[in-house]
């Protein structure tokens, strides 16, 4: 860990429980200033609760954190003056128009009426929402809502932006637009802490990644290091005959790497460090006489990352997400 002055976030042993649920069970973070830092994990892993503690919305039960040099408990007001939060539930007011939302935030941050309106219009224009500026947000598409949400977070450009799953549920085009905005943010000097369920997103955007499961950090590193530790990709295979899947799993396990059975009863995938090995695996299946409907080589999914790191698939505790959001 480097000197505190270059770290935008420095957390030790952060923990938070809701009733019997340990949402966050001791998390250490060191996020260098001026970078995009990805927090990767499944639903209920504790990402949202961690962000809410760092954004001073809920106090930690244990541990401590400094955000931009200020303690989140003792100097909460100073932290709030430097950060912004784009929550997992859209953190804009659905019963107001897009422009009213941005003017509201501008006024709350101290802009005079005219300045708040001018800033709102500038952002609406830049984010491609100008045409819908006078419409109620509840009539917005998912992508527009997300862009408005991020626009609301930069009414005054923060030094640190918390983005909680900014692309979950978006179509690829909207996702690409959000990625562009995130890149622009960091290019202008804002540090970004980005929560995501998508390895691809973390890979595309983040300089560093921390993987979280059951409220704990289970891996940390650059996207490259992380992918190296789980294999550069995954070999996806769909068989002609679902009853042969067990046999195929044994062969791929031996020839390629850890196997995950997919929801499709004829499909499975194997963690795969390189393409040559994938070709070998497919060859082995053919030699054993198993009919292959299709195969492909892709980036490892979050499930496969988890399998590679922990030996178990990313599971979703049924209640954890609700707990996180409700409290």
């Amino acid at each position, binding site marked *: 860990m480097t000197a505190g002055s270059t770290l935008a976030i420095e957390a030790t042993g952060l923990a938070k429980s809701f009733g019997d649920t340990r949402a966050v069970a001791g998390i250490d973070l060191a996020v260098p200033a001026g970078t995009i830092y990805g927090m990767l994990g499944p639903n209920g892993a504790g990402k949202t609760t961690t962000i809410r503690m760092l954004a001073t919305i809920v106090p930690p039960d244990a541990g401590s954190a400094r955000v931009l040099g200020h303690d989140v408990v003792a100097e909460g007001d100073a932290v709030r*003056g430097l950060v912004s939060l784009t*929550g997992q539930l859209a953190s804009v007011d659905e019963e107001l128009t897009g422009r009213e939302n941005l003017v509201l*935030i501008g*006024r709350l941050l101290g802009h005079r009426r005219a300045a708040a309106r001018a800033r709102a219009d500038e952002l609406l224009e830049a984010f491609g929402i100008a045409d819908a500026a006078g419409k109620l947000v509840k009539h917005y598409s998912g992508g527009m809502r997300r862009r408005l949400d991020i626009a609301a977070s930069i009414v005054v450009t923060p030094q640190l932006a918390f983005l909680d799953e900014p692309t979950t549920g978006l179509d690829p*085009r909207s996702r690409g637009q959000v990625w562009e905005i995130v890149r*622009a943010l960091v290019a202008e000097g804002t540090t970004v802490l980005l929560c995501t369920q998508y390895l691809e997103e973390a890979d595309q955007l983040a300089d560093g990644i921390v993987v979280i499961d059951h409220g704990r950090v289970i891996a940390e590193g650059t996207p490259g290091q992380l992918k190296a530790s789980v294999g550069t990709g995954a070999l996806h295979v769909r068989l002609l005959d679902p009853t042969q899947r067990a046999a195929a799993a044994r062969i791929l396990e031996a020839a390629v790497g850890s196997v995950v059975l997919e929801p499709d009863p004829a499909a499975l995938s194997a963690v795969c460090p390189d393409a040559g090995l994938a070709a070998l695996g497919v060859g082995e299946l053919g030699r054993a006489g198993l009919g292959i409907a299709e195969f492909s080589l892709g980036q490892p999914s979050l499930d496969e990352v988890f399998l590679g790191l922990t030996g178990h698939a990313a599971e979703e505790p049924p209640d954890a997400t609700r707990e996180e959001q409700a409290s």
Partner: protein
Amino acid sequence: MTATTTPGTTDTAAVRRAIASTARPPRPRPLSTALTFGWRGMLKVKHVPEQLIDVTITPVLFVLMFTYLFGGALAGSTGAYLQYVLPGILVMSVVFTTVYSGVALNTDLTKGVVDRFRSLPIWRPAPLLGALLGDSVRYVVAGTVILVLGVVLGYRPEGGVVGALLALGLVVVFSFGLSWVYSALGLVLRSPSAVLNGGFMVLFPLTFMSNVFVDPATLPGPLQAFVDVNPISVLATASRSLMAGTPDGTAIAVSLAVAAALTAVFLPVTTRLYRSR
């Protein structure tokens, strides 16, 4: 995507420019932040004017029902009863409206925007104070509806327009104080309907066991004792006195003191609850 008109797209250069202008204005004064939240409440009324129906229709029904149903029986004539009951109905209708402050707050809590408000560098009570100031406008609307309808039906305040407006002002100030209680309830209870039920469970007996509808002189002793100390009675007495042009200093002072005390106790309580929920 090819056939449909594509919605607006982001302009990366413009986004970069917008992000680069980082000037942070000085923090606003606490009260001006609260007024901004009050403005938010007004905008919602502007977009969904129907929500004013509950604060206008109900009082109209109350005035008509009590005047024509009970007037003859209770006071000999509807005209005489209207003269007695109208200030009371003003009190009851506006006080009932305070429950909706708690309901609205409870509904607000389920939305993501609250997290944004909590992460802003603003005076902590501002979202609550602002919402309640916005609700006070609804109280004024409800009260005005009642006064106008009363005059149309033949009510004549001896205190004149000034007396009637002072009474309305007093009722609104009292209700503002009371709405803090319902805000706290709105933050503690699980659902909007629980707030609604809980709120009226208290307000119904409190309003009916007061001097709003009948002169307490006819009541049995213990009930009369309760009615006399019931703050709703005190408020009704104060409003009556103002509208009659014979201000009852004690009742007015007690009404204002109750409002101040409720605010002083429940403002910090609700602010803490708002942060921790």
